[in-house]
């Protein structure tokens, strides 16, 4: 499988105290562990089980995922920004890999 590619959408600027909408998407097949291959063997589960978003090191939003989350997991959530800074996004894979992405926001 290709390396999962994260994509995030964060507004470039906001007013202090404003609540902004953040959208994230990562390419991942999210193998549920329910499917069988053509020999009837169960394909082992391999999903991203944890997503977290931090702003300047402080937690904003996180999610525990189960196999019932669709392939290429998508999230839309809010963040309240009081100062300029950087959002950091992390996705944790069952196989131990961690995928990260960052986005900066200018607050006036």
């Amino acid at each position, binding site marked *: 499988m290709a390396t999962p590619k994260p994509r995030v959408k964060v507004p470039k600027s906001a007013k202090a105290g404003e609540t902004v909408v953040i959208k994230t998407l990562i390419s991942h097949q999210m193998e549920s562990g329910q499917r069988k291959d053509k020999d009837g063997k169960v394909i082992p589960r391999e999903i991203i089980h944890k997503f977290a978003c931090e702003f300047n090191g402080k937690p*904003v*939003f996180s999610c525990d995922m189960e196999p*019932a*989350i669709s392939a290429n997991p998508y999230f839309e959530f809010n*963040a309240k920004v009081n100062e300029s800074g950087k959002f950091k996004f992390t996705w944790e894979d069952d196989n131990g890999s961690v995928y990260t992405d960052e986005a900066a926001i200018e607050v006036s």
Partner: protein
Amino acid sequence: MNINRRQLFLLSAGAALAGTGAIGVAPAYADAPAADKRIAEFAGGKAPATGKITLTAPEIAENGNTVPVAVKVDSAMEGDDMVESVMILAEGNPNPDVATFHFTAMSGAAEATTRMRLAKTQNVIAVARMADGSVYMDRKEVKVTIGGCGG
């Protein structure tokens, strides 16, 4: 023998049906009691009240592989009026758990959207646990045309 496409389709569909009949129901689907147990664990013994939380999902989902689901909880997200976590459950999936969102004061608003898999027509449940320990629940039936568990 001359088989056209339509007949071939009917034949294979028949074979597939016979196949499932022989094996019985292959995946053990979770049921309402399993989901109720998860709610009780999440709620810490409290009975969930209605209101405050809104679950948005399509009435009819054509493809069970990607069903958009959104939750929104009325909360100021400040001080005591804070949403800690929201759990989403699907009663009719092989495993009722879907996802658990965790919010903080930095979230600004207790709203989140994602996409989930649904195996069949079933109830989807969202349960919110507030910082003061109170629990709210919303439930919605989603009709699924094609199941999304690849079974």
